[in-house]
């Protein structure tokens, strides 16, 4: 038995064929760093002994020169 949502295969149902314009937006794998900072997350290997909140605070401080002002976390419960 696994976690909920694990290994779910979802079917894609297409209502109509439609293209997207290359003039705006960016494919996720072609984002530049600035775009990535807005659409990104970091999978952090938290040092043991410090709280998730503290790690998020440190990460925010490290990233602050790059205009990252908000950092959230989905923290470990120990």
């Amino acid at each position: 038995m696994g976690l909920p949502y694990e290994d779910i295969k979802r079917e894609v149902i297409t209502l109509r064929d439609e293209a997207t314009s290359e003039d705006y937006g960016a494919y996720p794998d072609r984002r530049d760093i600035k775009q990535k900072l807005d659409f990104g997350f970091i999978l952090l290997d938290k040092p043991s002994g410090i709280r998730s909140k503290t790690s998020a605070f440190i990460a925010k401080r490290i990233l602050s020169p790059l205009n990252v002002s908000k950092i959230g976390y989905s923290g470990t419960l120990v």
Partner: protein
Amino acid sequence: MNRANKAIALLLLGGKEYVALMHVHKDFDPEELKKQMLEFVGKINQLPPVRSNVKRQYRERTVYYLDILEVENKDVLFKVGVESGTYIRKLIHDMGEKTGLGAHMVELRRTKVAGLTEDDGLSTLQGLEDAVYFYEKEGNDKPLSRVIQNIEKAVDFLPKVWISDFAVDTVCKGAPIAVPGVVKFNPFKPDEWVLIYTLKGEIVAIGKAAIDSSSLKGIEKGIVIRTDSVIMRPGIYPEYHKTQ
């Protein structure tokens, strides 16, 4: 980070997996202990520890699975899959109480969050600091773009609807998704969390399904998804004009 923050809360839907090391206080029969530990699989009631950020009242949580990996003397190494908000230290304490042996947690490592594992590009705070340094001081963005991953990867387990370019900007301003905006979709049920994507695969917003997706094929108008949190900022896609 930044606007992607709103999506992080969705990770709580997916549950977590840990590997924990439990130290048992008295001698025990491994088979008997194993049997009693497995009784914790299913619904449990847990009182959050004193030192926690939530209200101290019993909460129901689900233990999805429990796998004992190794028993050595009084130490038991096990893997456990749980609902978000389950305290493993407390779970181990309660196992100790129930068996009358007494137990405490020695070590804990989270191995999965909503399908993300340690193999999905884990980085340390030091690694992050170095990556920022390379980017800032040397103009090398490679390490940083390895450390920062696309938020879509974290929420990928939920159903999606892909919307037309013309609908993107209105959703960025908080509008719901109506039938004409939907190009393709993964099946969803009413009230289910659904991710709203562009045709390029960028996340625009997160919403709740207003209808069952099976009825989508037969209708031409009406609300499909109610937008809850917007991730993409307005102005990236062109503004929609009804006259177009």
